[in-house]
């Protein structure tokens, strides 16, 4: 009989012989499919990205075992749901566009339609349903409307629509379908919309990920208007509106082979440089995943580093900069070799949620730290083998996270204090956002 060690050594070889690996004939089919499939943006981590869904979306299922509940409990739940939906869809007061707010409904995608769900009751209802392929719901800062993407021309182009949170008043935002729409954002006033889309061929000689000329356009939400281009640049990874009034669109761009941070007002004027384009980066991890503090004074982002003691050179550290201009500085001082990044600042401005990736660990986690960098780093939520993205609840008490490393199609609610995570009581696609509503008076 063979020894266990010897058997173990031979097993790998034997398995290879048994499987007889050969290039299968379906490789061509796979490459044909991937050629027609858009990639997920590298910065797909915060609320303004437009993901492409390729997997079959699950049928909605009620999470609560209604049949097993007593009649009285069901009635109470229905009343709670009705109140929640009424509060979410019939706001008499509106929240400020930035800063803390109360938690409203969560828009999500299922079976190519847009739904809204209420966490407290577990109830969901369709917002926009039909034969079209819709995705990427984004609520307006005042919580009254939801914008979403709709595939046209065989999903090769994209239109943006908006609809009231109660499902009425559907309007097309884009005057015509756009190719390679990468990012959208509401202006705080709610009457204009930012569209970031790539144009033209790849920029010659560009060695970073987004080697396309990118246009930042603004358009009236009411529809029927024209796109007004407020900025054009190479390597834009989306924009962030600067609180507290959204008076600036902030973006990063590549200038003469170096990354910089820039801002322009929504009418295309008052262009300025926040960080001069001096950052060389062999990989695309510089000035991405922008996130403002709610007072608009500080801007958090991913940064590459050439300092090996802070991790592998090139990737990834959590930095911030004075939004009026200054020298970027490191926010979280983790132990050597750790990667931190993809920051999202809580609406109350106290916390920042980010990746915490320990070297040679097969998994990573979402971490939370004080925005001033003091105190401990709190790990929260499940260990993740792959990517994830997340948003804060408007009241800053939860983090809504979708994990990309399974086919579960389920989002999690994380406790920023590190307590147990729970799953949303419905299944959904990967799009994440959370309606802001006015806090109780």
């Amino acid at each position, binding site marked *: *009989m*063979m020894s266990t060690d010897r058997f173990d050594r031979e097993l790998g070889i034997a398995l290879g012989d*048994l499987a007889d690996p050969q290039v299968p004939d379906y490789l061509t089919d796979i490459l044909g499919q991937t050629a027609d499939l858009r990639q997920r*943006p590298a910065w797909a981590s915060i609320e303004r990205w437009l993901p492409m869904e*390729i997997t079959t979306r699950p049928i909605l299922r009620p999470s609560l075992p209604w049949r097993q509940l007593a009649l009285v409990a069901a009635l109470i739940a229905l009343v709670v749901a009705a109140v929640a939906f009424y509060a979410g869809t019939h706001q008499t007061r509106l929240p400020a566009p930035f800063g803390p707010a109360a938690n409203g409904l969560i828009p999500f995608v299922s079976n190519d339609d847009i739904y809204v769900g209420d966490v407290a009751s577990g109830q969901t209802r369709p917002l926009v349903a039909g034969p079209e392929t819709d995705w990427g719901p984004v609520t307006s800062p005042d919580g009254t409307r939801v914008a979403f993407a709709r595939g046209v021309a065989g999903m090769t182009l994209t239109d943006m629509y908006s609809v009231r949170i109660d499902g009425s008043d559907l309007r097309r935002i884009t005057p015509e379908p756009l190719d390679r729409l990468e990012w959208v954002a509401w202006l705080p006033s709610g009457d204009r919309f930012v569209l970031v889309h790539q144009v033209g061929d790849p920029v010659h000689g560009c060695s970073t990920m987004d080697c396309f000329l990118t246009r930042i356009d603004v358009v009236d939400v009411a529809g029927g208007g024209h796109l007004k281009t407020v900025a054009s640049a190479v390597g834009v990874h989306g924009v962030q509106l600067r609180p507290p009034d959204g008076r600036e669109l902030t973006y990063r761009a590549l200038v003469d082979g170096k990354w910089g941070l820039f801002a322009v007002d929504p009418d295309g004027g008052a262009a300025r440089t926040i960080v001069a384009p001096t950052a060389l980066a062999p990989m695309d991890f510089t000035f991405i995943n922008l996130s403002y503090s709610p007072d608009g004074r500080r801007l958090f982002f991913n940064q590459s580093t050439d300092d090996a003691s802070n991790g592998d050179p090139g*990737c990834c550290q959590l930095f911030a900069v004075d939004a009026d201009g200054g020298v970027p500085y490191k926010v979280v001082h983790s132990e050597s070799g750790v990667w931190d990044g993809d920051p999202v600042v809580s609406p109350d401005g106290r916390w920042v949620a980010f990746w915490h990736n320990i070297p040679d660990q097969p998994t990573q986690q979402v971490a939370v730290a004080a925005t001033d960098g003091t105190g401990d780093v709190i790990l929260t939520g499940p260990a993740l083998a792959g990517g994830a993205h997340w948003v804060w609840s408007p009241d800053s008490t939860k983090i809504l996270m979708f994990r990309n490393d399974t086919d579960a199609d389920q989002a999690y609610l994380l406790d920023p204090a590190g307590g147990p995570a729970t799953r949303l009581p419905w299944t959904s696609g990967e799009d994440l956002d959370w309606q802001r509503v006015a806090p109780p008076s």
Partner: protein
Amino acid sequence: MHQRGLVERAQRGDHDAFAALAGAAIARLDAAARLILRDPELARDAVQDAMLRAWRDLPTLRDVDRFDGWLHRLTVNACLDQLRRRRRRPIEVEMTTLFAPSTGDFSRGVIDRDLLDRALQGLEPDRRALVVLHSYLGMPLPEVAATLGIPLGTAKSRLHRTLELLRESVAFEADDDRQPEAVPEGRFA
């Protein structure tokens, strides 16, 4: 071109680079999927799912040097998803007529492939995944544990037990001159 360069190019949307990476990896992935799923059609579906997901999510891969491990993980997860979908159907006991066993030449340390095939057939799919990840794809045990969603200690103990089971099964079959029987899946569960 070096794999790292191809991965970086593919991350930037270069489909030709992705095609090169896929072409280099797919034979290994297809073999692993067939070993785990014991069904070429299911294996094809799993590898296809994994490849589509790989292309879609490649820009979010943070460490390009982990590309191989990441791709293996996607493939094994896709295999396990295939199995979960199958389990939602009515339970079927799959009876498979096996090859006549040939005698393993253990003096030269070679595992008889037919006997190994039979032994693998009798393992639960998650045990097959464990063995394939570790012994065929060469994935470190902590990564195997993460991929299968089990604690490291559990992965270690399960791998040890499974290897023992395989070893004893192969040895037993080698010493057994009986004709093979139809073996239902899950025999060694």
